[in-house]
């Protein structure tokens, strides 16, 4: 039972960090708002496009190609999640778990090779 208490008390530090992380930007932005001069102008509110005159809205539709990169990030993120407990428990699991994990990684590598062959990994 003592272990459970010390486990939970460890997370108090996480909580303190979380509070600091939330408070710091709020306080910084609020102080900045108090201190800076406030002189609104028409030109300040236009979309910034590297100095040239803006000619359309800042929200444009992105190319579908970018979605594939996000998708592959998600899939390999999930793979990492499964790799982690395997690596932690590896010394108790031995060679059989290594083979299991190899099958898992090869399965996902097939997906990566498929994406490569379909030429969706090209940026342009």
């Amino acid at each position, binding site marked *: *039972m003592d272990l459970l208490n010390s486990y939970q008390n460890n997370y108090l530090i996480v909580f303190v960090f979380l509070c600091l992380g939330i408070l710091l930007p709020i306080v910084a932005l609020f102080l900045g708002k108090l201190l800076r001069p406030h002189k609104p102008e028409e030109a300040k509110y236009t979309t910034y496009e590297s100095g040239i005159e803006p000619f359309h809205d800042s929200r444009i539709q992105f190319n*579908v190609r970018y*979605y594939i990169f996000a*998708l592959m990030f*998600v*899939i390999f*993120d999930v793979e990492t*999640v*499964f790799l982690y407990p395997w690596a932690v428990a590896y010394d108790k699991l031995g060679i059989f778990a290594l083979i299991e994990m190899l099958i898992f990684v090869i399965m996902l590598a097939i997906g990566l090779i498929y994406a490569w062959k379909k030429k969706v990994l090209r940026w342009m």
Partner: protein
Amino acid sequence: MNSVPLSAYLVLALILFCIGLYGALTKRNAVIVLISIELMLNAVNINLVAFSKLGPAPSISGQIFSLFTITVAAAEAAVGLAILMSLYNRRKTVNVDEMDQLKH
């Protein structure tokens, strides 16, 4: 000693599930419908983890179940959005009540 009872976690999961169900049934934007479904899956995960610690037979299996649920949720979101984008390119809409035809 252990102050938070099991039923508190179950009630919280029930509330989140109801919010997700309401969102999935009333919202018109398909992305929001998908993310409401994620919220419902999350509520189910809370139940699984709560039973894995406070249930009649506590064991690690509940946590492993929810690990699989999270994986399936990620795959579901990926494929769901790909279908949505394909549909959007044909019909130019993301509103679920306009997606009422099987042909294109």
